[in-house]
């Protein structure tokens, strides 16, 4: 249902000041504390498409762009419905005052959750305009046919959208009990001009010409520069503080101390660096920040020996004592986002009487979360706070929290002038909410034919979605009674056995934790796919056929990916010489995204290194809205797979974070690149599945399995170093 008040809301924002707007059932749910989790569905949601005077199509982008370019795919869907070209759509990144709350951009959900509501909004608009065209042409609606950018009759009389739209405000609404108009984008029998075509990301020219698209690029009159000291973990409290040297630094405007917050505001960026260097601070910690402490906390074998783990995810005729064919423990390291853009924010306070008392420019995955937290932090009402979301220089799950924004707000409030905060790379590492370390015990038993009889998988990891400092302290114990949706990602294997148990436990680690690409998916599936590969090797079976057989027909889409990637890999001959190996792995992300990867590696004894030579990927994407951008996301996931399998390790020691820059946290570089061969399995009759964090679940185990094939070494912990072999 669309109520009058919602319509008034749209008019009040100025969004429907003129022209015709297609609206699809706006939602106004209660807003969660964090992160914002309102997704559109069949009866609620938010999607805005408008034809403005002159016939130009505007749409509010419902997602923030961080490289996944989901808005381009969504615009293609709108363009398909409206019979226009995606290049002709003028996209607007809405501020928090332009639209009702929209969900955090996360979870590879953009295409899955938004494609259909947007298609309905655009199709509703099209059909409303068709009614107008019928009046204008003096024809029955059924005689008004589609045309590019408008309509036509069978005798070629044309009317364009521009002819149908004037300066009066008209909102075309679809009530929830009305039939859904024909959706061209989802009609698999239709010849499409937009959907399914490899369109360039909207706005790409700005990205290669130095356009101002990121937070720190926003010009701001009278801006000052500031930064706060980042603690090694957010629960840390200041034990000792010496700021006596700050006053000596030229260009310091003020020093701000509020509880455990200490920061400076200066006239130039270099003055900020010098002033921060003069702040000596030591921290009181709740837990020691050491590798030993992390290992102790995730000791899966100790916990499984002591009894059931905290969360039982699958339990089917479980037997504790089977004749285990495989009984292996896998350990996965801490990893962090290391997005190329260190976070930045600009905050400006305005006098009473201004539209907004507080304005914040920031690249965040959750603009509405920022609005709520800034309101709580300052005591201003939410309507007094506006967030202008900027493009993110990489997100990967790491940008959902009120952090750099908080620094900017507190410093701007202290000086009464706009303040830009640009975190350093060291700040970025220090304040990262990393993917937790985890330990996995997998036991598999099989019968005489090699078929699985028992599957017992237990793992211990840090919290993810319910990590400390992600939710308010009072809410955490309540939230943690239920399964953490990040912790359980990937835990249920696609393989069938009469006796199955999957259990897990999530614990507080001494570092800040949070959402990282694929959440627990890549960790769990590394363990599962390594164990299954080992079982195939022990049985002398070809791993792809073995895995498909053990799915017992229950996962046809995944099995098809696996069979497809085997074919892809066979296009390239693996050298017979010692040291070369090929491995396979597959996985399901979030129950809806299916992928398989093969890896060719060379374990180079002479140069003492592991080289990934070639990666193939077959991914079932459902309906492929933009094949080229799907391919780009798969390429990205494959590169991350190399980082996770071989390079990246977030180092802690001596009660602090040791990883501080790209010289001591190694991510893939050009020289690490293998050749890639990617097959996108398009299923035009099925909804788009998402791709942002999918192939990463299968890449690392494929590399590990290739190393097993090449050298006989079974990698039990990530990252794999040559010295391990």
């Amino acid at each position, binding site marked *: 249902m669309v109520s009058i008040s919602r319509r008034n809301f749209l008019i009040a924002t100025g969004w429907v000041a003129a022209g015709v707007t297609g609206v699809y059932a706006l939602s106004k749910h209660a807003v969660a504390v964090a992160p914002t989790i309102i997704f559109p569905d069949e009866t609620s949601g938010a999607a805005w498409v408008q034809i403005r005077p002159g016939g130009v199509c505007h749409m509010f982008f419902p997602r923030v*762009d*961080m*490289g*996944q370019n989901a808005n381009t795919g969504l615009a293609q869907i709108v363009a398909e419905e409206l019979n226009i070209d995606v290049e002709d759509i003028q996209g607007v990144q809405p501020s928090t005052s332009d639209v009702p709350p929209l969900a955090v951009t996360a979870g590879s959900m953009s295409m899955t959750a938004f494609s259909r509501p947007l298609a309905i909004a655009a199709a509703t608009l099209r059909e409303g305009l068709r009614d107008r065209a019928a009046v204008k042409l003096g024809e029955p609606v059924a005689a008004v046919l589609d045309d590019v950018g408008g309509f036509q009759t069978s005798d070629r009389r044309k009317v364009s959208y521009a002819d149908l739209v004037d300066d009066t405000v008209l909102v075309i609404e679809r009530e929830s009990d009305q039939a859904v108009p024909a959706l061209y984008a989802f009609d698999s029998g239709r010849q499409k001009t937009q959907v399914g075509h*490899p369109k*360039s*990301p909207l706005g*790409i*020219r*700005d*990205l*290669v*010409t*130095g*356009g*101002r*698209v*990121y937070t*720190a*690029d926003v010009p701001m009159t009278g801006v000052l*520069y500031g930064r706060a000291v980042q603690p090694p973990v957010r629960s840390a409290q200041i034990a000792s503080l010496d700021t006596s040297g700050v006053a000596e630094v030229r*260009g310091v405007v003020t020093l701000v101390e509020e509880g455990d917050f200490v920061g400076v505001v200066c*006239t*130039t*960026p*270099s003055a900020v660096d010098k002033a921060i260097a003069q702040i000596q601070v030591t921290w009181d910690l709740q837990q020691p920040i050491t590798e030993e402490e992390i290992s102790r906390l995730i000791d899966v074998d100790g916990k499984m020996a002591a009894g059931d783990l905290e969360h039982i995810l699958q339990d089917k005729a479980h037997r504790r004592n089977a004749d285990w064919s495989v009984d292996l423990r896998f350990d996965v390291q801490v990893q962090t*986002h*290391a*997005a*190329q*853009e*260190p976070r930045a924010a600009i905050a400006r306070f305005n006098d009473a009487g201004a539209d907004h008392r507080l304005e914040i420019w920031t690249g965040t995955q959750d603009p509405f979360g920022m609005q709520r937290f800034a309101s709580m932090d300052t005591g201003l009402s939410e309507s007094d706070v506006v967030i202008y979301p900027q*493009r993110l*220089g*990489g*997100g*990967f799950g790491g940008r959902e929290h009120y952090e750099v924004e908080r620094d900017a707000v507190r410093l701007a409030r202290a000086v009464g002038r706009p303040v830009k905060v*640009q975190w*350093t*790379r060291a700040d970025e590492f220090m304040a990262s909410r990393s993917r937790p370390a985890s330990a996995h015990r997998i036991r598999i038993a099989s019968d005489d034919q090699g078929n699985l009889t028992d599957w017992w998988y237990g793992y211990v990891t840090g919290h993810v979605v319910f990590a400390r400092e992600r939710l308010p302290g009072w809410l955490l114990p309540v939230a943690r009674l239920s399964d953490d949706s990040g912790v359980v990602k990937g835990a249920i294997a696609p393989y069938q056995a009469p006796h199955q148990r999957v259990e897990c436990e999530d614990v507080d680690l001494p570092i800040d934790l949070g959402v990282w690409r694929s959440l627990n998916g890549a960790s769990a599936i590394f363990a599962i796919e390594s164990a299954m590969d080992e079982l195939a090797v022990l049985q002398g079976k070809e791993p792809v056929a073995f895995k498909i057989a053990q799915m017992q027909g229950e996962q046809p889409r995944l099995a098809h990916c696996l069979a497809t990637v085997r074919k892809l890999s066979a296009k390239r001959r693996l050298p017979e010489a010692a040291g070369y190996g090929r491995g396979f792995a597959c996985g399901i992300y979030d129950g809806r995204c299916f992928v398989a990867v093969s890896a060719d590696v060379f374990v180079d004894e002479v140069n003492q290194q592991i080289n990934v030579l070639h990666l193939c990927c077959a991914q079932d994407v459902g309906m492929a809205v933009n094949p*080229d*951008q799907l391919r*780009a*996301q798969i*390429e*990205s*996931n*494959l*590169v*991350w797979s190399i980082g996770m399998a071989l390079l990246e390790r977030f180092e802690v020691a001596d009660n602090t974070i040791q990883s501080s*820059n*790209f*010289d001591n946290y190694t*991510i*893939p*570089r*050009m*020289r690490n*690149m293998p050749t*890639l061969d990617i097959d996108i399995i398009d299923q035009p009759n099925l909804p788009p599945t998402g791709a942002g964090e999918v192939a990463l679940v299968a890449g690392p185990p494929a590399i590990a399995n290739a190393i097993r094939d090449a050298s006989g070494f079974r990698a039990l912990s990530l990252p794999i170093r040559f010295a391990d072999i």
Partner: protein
Amino acid sequence: MKVRVNEVEHHVAADWRDETLLTVLREHLGLAGTKFSCGIGQCGACVVHVDGSAINSCLISIADVENKNILTIEGLASGDGSLHPLQQAWIDENVPQCGFCQSGQIMQALALVGDKPDPTDADIDSVMSGNLCRCGTYDRIRKSIKKAALVMRSTS
């Protein structure tokens, strides 16, 4: 103090003479296309050309480039708006994902093709490995460099 950026002479105010070239470009001269990412010359996001050589602008003081000719990403396209072959290849191959590193990638690639008009994979590995891309667009960067180099060879 004066610097020449993209063939335009700029005056650097006294307050900004202790800054890096990167900070002056971004915060003082309003040329925000060059990016800050690591601050220690490990990632290449801030690459510009000084008198024809690619350098990390986060590592060099503004005082050290006084009266030198600086080229940034904003100066790469022609005055009429037509893109440099590298920029065009970047668009044709849809290289950028988040896009943050791409100014630096393009400026580093400009140095590469200037030095090696027909770069091999080994040349690309060697010259481009100082430029990080967390999104992992390396495969497309490699293709774009080869494509642009071909265009530049055929038009020179």
